[in-house]
């Protein structure tokens, strides 16, 4: 922190390179936040394009456009790109922009490492996207890259493994940075229990990331040595066990689910009180519930693999543990609704997305409870019911929370108000098309339609047609977001005041809009 102060103490704020070098060499948290957000938006569209390819093939029964191998590449890469390229970096982008401004710090604790952790991402993403063009194409083993499929594929799999290593390293460095910033650089008087909930959720998420990203790195390294160096961790013929991969992967994978949703909870917990013009109901409960969800996330991983076979004792254990997560999650949903209760509500775009989040995420949570029941899960494993479930929590959960955050803070970041009418169009079209796309998947899943298969029986034709039309609509609706954001950045909207929203509270709203390049060089005092 001393170093940060010394560096910023020169007083001349304009001392940074211009043009492309500004972005390559930047150590400024706002610049790096912007880089993360632009990167994740780009990856969101690449991943979205792959989704369009999936839905195009599924528009009608029979094989229309792709070979089955390429279809599998589309589903696998859609998952990998959306999880590691879009959702996770987007939340880190929010953390970079917001955490220092919310706790009254001048920048992130390790500013140069911050630059390094961002610039690793385009390298990883390039490896992932380039893998489509190597012999055999990209990985087609699903985003979960289960062995033994993943021990057999071509070089596209190696590129995916290296990409995961690199993106994992980036996440770990980002997390160390966020934890150190939050624990060491808070303004005087900003005690832990006064921190905005977004900061709290990120603190807990960062610990989760540090705990599980090395586990993923271990799993994919074992995969790599199995593929090239003669080990047999996952090769049954050599005394290994492919089920081991699933255990190790999901020990990472389940906390990963919470890594992708907890910062979203944080954003919603900032937005709902602002537009309810009331303080967050049960602040401490929210902090405790977040911690509780994080702890429980480590003891539920095998609910992803009930069908691989395990003793009844283990099945029951993971079923009960999974159901317990409904308690703290229910506390959170209750608190958001209680915050709105008797509030002076208005529904600007961030609030619309937050309300949409609460409604649709809860539906995804409920289908999660259904899937937690072992005998039900054994019927529904690998069907479209699961696809519907995790898109309800990841699209309507994480992505809607991200949209809420963008609309909430972009006037602060750019100094210009976004186009409210277009924002509302973006919300309603996203909400409607999202449900048209994913709600029918509950029905097809219950009827037994398996995921990751490019063709299907005639009985599923109508629901798949509806889903595909919905997905094209959802994809196109996202262009509105790009237009709104570009308009804001170009300064087209009306100028906003420091405190953009009437009901907003927190240190970031004491800064000018847009905030100067360096903020809080002299720490504010929090009462």
């Amino acid at each position, binding site marked *: 922190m001393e170093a940060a102060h010394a560096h910023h103490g020169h007083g001349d704020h304009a001392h940074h390179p211009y043009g492309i070098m500004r972005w390559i060499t930047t150590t400024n948290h706002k610049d790096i936040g912007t880089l993360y957000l632009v990167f994740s938006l780009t990856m969101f569209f690449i991943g979205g394009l792959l989704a369009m390819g999936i839905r195009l093939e599924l528009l009608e029964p029979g094989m229309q456009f792709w070979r089955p191998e390429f279809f599998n590449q589309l589903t696998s890469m859609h998952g990998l790109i959306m999880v590691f390229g879009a959702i996770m970096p987007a939340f880190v982008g929010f953390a970079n922009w917001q955490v220092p401004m919310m706790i009254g710090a001048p920048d992130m604790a390790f500013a140069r490492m911050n630059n390094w952790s961002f610039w690793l991402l385009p390298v990883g993403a390039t490896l992932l996207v380039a893998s489509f063009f190597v012999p055999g194409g990209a990985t087609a083993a699903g985003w979960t890259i289960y062995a033994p499929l993943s021990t057999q594929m071509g070089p596209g799999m190696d590129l995916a493994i290296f990409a995961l290593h690199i993106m994992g390293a980036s996440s770990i460095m980002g997390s160390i940075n966020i934890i150190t910033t939050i624990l060491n650089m808070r303004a005087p008087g900003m*005690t832990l229990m006064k921190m905005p909930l977004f900061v709290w959720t990120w603190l807990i998420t960062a610990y989760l990331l540090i705990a599980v990203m090395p586990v993923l790195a271990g799993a994919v390294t074992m995969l790599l040595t199995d593929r090239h160096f003669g080990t047999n961790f996952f090769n049954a013929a050599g005394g290994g066990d492919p089920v081991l991969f699933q255990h190790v992967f999901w020990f990472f994978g389940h906390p990963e689910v919470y890594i992708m949703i907890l910062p979203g909870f944080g954003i919603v917990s900032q937005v709902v009180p602002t537009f309810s013009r009331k303080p967050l109901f049960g602040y*401490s409960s929210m902090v405790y*519930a977040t911690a509780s969800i994080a*702890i429980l996330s480590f003891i539920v991983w095998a609910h992803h693999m009930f069908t691989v076979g395990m003793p*009844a004792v283990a099945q029951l254990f993971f079923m009960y543990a999974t159901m317990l997560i409904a*308690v703290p999650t229910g*506390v959170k949903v209750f608190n958001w609704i209680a915050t709105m209760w008797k509030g002076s509500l208005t529904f600007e775009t961030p609030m619309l997305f937050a309300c949409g989040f609460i409604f649709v995420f809860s539906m995804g949570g409920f289908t999660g409870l259904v899937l937690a029941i072992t005998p039900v899960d054994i019927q529904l494993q690998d069907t479209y019911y699961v696809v519907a479930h995790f898109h309800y929590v990841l699209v309507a959960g994480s992505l809607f929370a991200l949209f809420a955050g963008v609309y909430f803070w972009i006037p602060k970041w750019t100094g210009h108000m976004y186009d409210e009418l277009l924002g509302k169009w973006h919300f309603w079209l996203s909400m409607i098309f999202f449900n048209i796309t994913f709600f029918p998947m509950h029905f097809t899943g219950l009827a037994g339609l398996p995921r990751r298969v490019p063709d299907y029986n005639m009985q599923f034709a109508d629901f798949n047609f509806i889903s595909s039309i919905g997905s094209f609509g959802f994809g196109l609706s996202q262009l509105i977001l790009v237009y709104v954001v570009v308009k804001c950045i170009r300064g087209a909207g009306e100028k906003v005041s420091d405190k953009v929203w009437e009901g907003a509270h927190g240190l970031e709203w004491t800064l000018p809009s847009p905030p100067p390049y360096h903020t809080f060089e002299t720490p504010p005092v929090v009462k």
Partner: protein
Amino acid sequence: MATTLEPESPRKATPLQVAKAVLSAFIGIRRRAAHEHDAVTLSPVQVIVAGVIAAAILVLSLVMLVRTITS
């Protein structure tokens, strides 16, 4: 550093208080007054140790429960 600027702890929390705070965290509910009291008396080390112990107890009690059901 901000941590040194926080108010001095009036006194250390007893193990019972730590247990209460951690158990509330497991459910996700805590009264504001009790929570504010926690904030000044609990140290992070206490919370982490109690959290790990409580998680172990939760796992063990779930294991015992499922063993009873399946036996």
